[in-house]
């Protein structure tokens, strides 16, 4: 009887323990060693890195090995994860007060971590030469106030892209558009010409942007830059999206759907679906467009040519053409740049100055020279640091790269909206919240034809009034 009870107790305890085991996780090693603790006498710098490019996570082992050999007292310890997991893991670690020293994020996340007091100002640990290596406007995306909280890896111009054959059929001089840009009116007329009807239904749309769920944010954010709203705040730090000219911009976006140039179901088309529609000839122009889409289209063309079953079902050969976003009335030609890079973080265990210096050094190493060159080449981008550009020249060139696209991307990179490090983190966080909770939901309603431009504008004004106060936003 006693043995039975003991057995039952052991089994119950084992069950309880097995449930508790899950709480341990992969951080056990870190908690034993502590942040920056010695490992064989070395200062350990931890980094959490996503698959920045197709082969980045494979190459990172070589990069880290080379760094560790160059720096006998320092060791970079890398944790790799998928893009989704990286964000999730980072947020969990940050909220637990023990983030990695370096993490790869979009620069729009800097204010979030800064607001939580977790971002480290590395400007004091980097040399002037190291900071000057980066293009100033791009480096600014990792600045806030006087502080520098990370280093950029690349700047990806987010624009639109077209099918060369369809553009030419519609009589659009795409080379001229690449060089000189286009106005909203010119764009609107062009996409009208791109519409192909067959048996009373639309076979090909003139323009299509992924707008399902949060991707609607991209459509709004990328286009609004060319409508006289380069930033949500003006130089006096007043919120600008409340300006009445926002109504005109929203009317213009809605008009393209009402014209029949864009599908009325736009709000439910996700990024995968719209790329599928691009490759299957269901649209002439698509957004958002990235430089690397040229490679994606070329790969599919190759598969089609070889009769490969992996080619997208029903797809046609597509020669991808990079195009700038049109300029709306009252706006100027700008480009929206997604600047991603390496943020430096600290946690509850305050590291010493020596460790922070090593963190800054490791971040610079990852963001510069061959690492930058190889990553950018894979993404069809030009490096945004001098050392990266030098290394880029030494790399074997990409075969069959469309030179017109390359020149357009280079030119657009120069038109990137300047960073706004003067916007305090708290103010930036409030603007993001208005965007997520008011602008995106109302914009989805606008695309579905259930919210008018005036109603959306009024909702933005109401939210801004509540968040920034009567004097905190632009009324006229």
């Amino acid at each position: 009887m006693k043995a039975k009870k003991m057995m039952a107790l052991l089994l119950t305890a084992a069950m309880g323990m097995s449930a508790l085991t899950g709480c341990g996780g992969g951080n056990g090693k870190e908690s034993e060693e502590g942040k920056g603790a010695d490992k064989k006498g070395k200062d350990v710098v931890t980094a959490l890195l996503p698959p920045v490019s197709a082969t980045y996570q494979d190459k990172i082992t070589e990069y880290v090995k080379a760094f560790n050999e160059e720096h006998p007292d320092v060791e970079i310890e890398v944790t790799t994860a998928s893009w989704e997991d990286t964000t999730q893991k980072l947020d969990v670690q940050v909220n637990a007060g023990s983030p990695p020293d370096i993490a790869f994020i979009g620069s729009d996340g800097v204010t979030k971590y800064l607001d939580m007091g977790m971002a480290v100002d590395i400007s004091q640990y980097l040399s002037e030469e190291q900071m000057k290596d980066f293009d100033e406007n791009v480096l600014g995306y990792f600045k806030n106030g006087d502080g520098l909280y990370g280093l950029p890896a690349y700047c990806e111009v987010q624009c639109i892209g077209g099918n060369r054959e369809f553009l030419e059929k519609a009589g659009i001089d795409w080379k001229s558009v690449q060089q000189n840009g286009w106005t909203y009116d010119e764009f609107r007329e062009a996409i009208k010409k791109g519409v192909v009807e067959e048996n009373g239904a639309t076979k090909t749309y003139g323009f299509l942007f992924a707008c399902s769920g949060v991707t609607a944010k991209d459509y709004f954010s990328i286009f609004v830059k060319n409508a006289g709203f380069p930033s949500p705040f003006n130089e006096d730090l007043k919120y600008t999206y409340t300006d009445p000219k926002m109504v005109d911009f929203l009317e213009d976006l809605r008009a393209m759907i009402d014209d029949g140039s864009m599908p009325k179901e736009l709000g439910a088309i996700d990024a995968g679906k719209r790329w599928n529609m691009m490759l299957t000839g269901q649209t002439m122009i698509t957004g958002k467009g990235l430089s690397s889409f040229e490679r994606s289209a070329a790969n599919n063309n190759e598969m089609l040519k070889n009769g490969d079953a992996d080619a997208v079902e029903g797809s046609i050969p597509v020669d991808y053409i990079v195009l700038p976003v049109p300029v709306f009335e009252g706006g100027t030609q700008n480009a929206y740049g997604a600047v991603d890079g390496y943020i430096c973080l600290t946690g509850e265990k305050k590291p010493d100055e020596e460790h922070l210096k090593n963190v800054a050094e490791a971040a610079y190493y990852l963001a510069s020279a061959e690492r930058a060159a190889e990553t950018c080449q894979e993404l069809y981008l030009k490096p945004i640091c001098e050392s990266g550009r030098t290394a880029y020249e030494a790399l074997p060139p990409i075969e069959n790269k469309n030179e017109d696209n390359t020149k357009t991307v280079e030119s657009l990179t120069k038109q990137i909206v300047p960073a706004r490090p003067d916007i305090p983190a708290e103010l930036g966080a409030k603007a993001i919240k208005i965007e997520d909770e008011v602008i995106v939901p109302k914009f989805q309603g606008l695309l579905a034809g259930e919210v008018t431009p005036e109603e959306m504008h009024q909702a933005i004004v109401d939210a801004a009034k509540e968040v920034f106060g009567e004097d905190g936003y632009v009324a006229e």
Partner: protein
Amino acid sequence: MKKKLKKDTMWAYVFILVPLCTFTIFTLYPVVSAAITSFQEYKPMGSEWVGLDNYVHTLKNDLFYKALWNTFVYAIITVPVSMLLSFSISIMILPYRKKIQTVFKAAYYLPAIASGVALSFVWKWIYDPMSTGLLNSVLGAFGVPNQNWLGSGNTAMASLIIMAVFAGLGQNVIIYTAALLGVDSTYYEAADIDGATFWQKVRYIVWPLVKPTTVFLAITGVINGLQSFQNAYLMTGGGPDNATTMAGLLIFNRAFKYFEYGEACAQALLLAAIIAVFSIFQFRLNSADVEY
């Protein structure tokens, strides 16, 4: 005898201790911790005490009320429709042999074992807004124009409800079938002798005898419905124009998008209180003439 009793009592406490520890660590501690956090502005490097600010802010937020309304609509439609359908299916599969019953039960239960993400892919194809979408192509055959199922405020909530009803049907079918098998066949025999019709048997025998199961399914269904998060998160992200933003999604965004854990905890506790009140009310309303 007294010694044995004392020994047994000691063992009873030892056995109770293990689940008690698990309950304390995984349930009690998080609830207490959430209650404390709801009065703080949470920051990893040191939280600040803000009193009732998080609750005040939540109760002043229109989106919180909209999310609550959406959640109620979702739960109040999903639960009865799902129960009615599963009750009907269970009655229909009951006359079959055990093997055939198992086939039906397995078929209906299949979506319950599939991951939510995998299901969302299938439902996204069903709700594809273009003419290639399954539902649109079926409707198109009858001359109905394309519907923007998830992208329009008029259809997005209904689309999520339909998805929830079909995805959650299997569990209810299994529970109802088990309950129906527990009804003594002598009742049916007596009813047959009295000349009762099929509907009379359902109305006067089956329904009263499975009422405890119905109460259980209704209460747990409403609790799950009010906590719903996954479908809105995966299918619509809460849009368009917050037409499908549920309380669970709002709390998730507050905590994991904006790191406002204090306000998220306040919202979660308010939701828990609402669910508790709702469950007690439902329990009292439905269980008056139920014998367990």
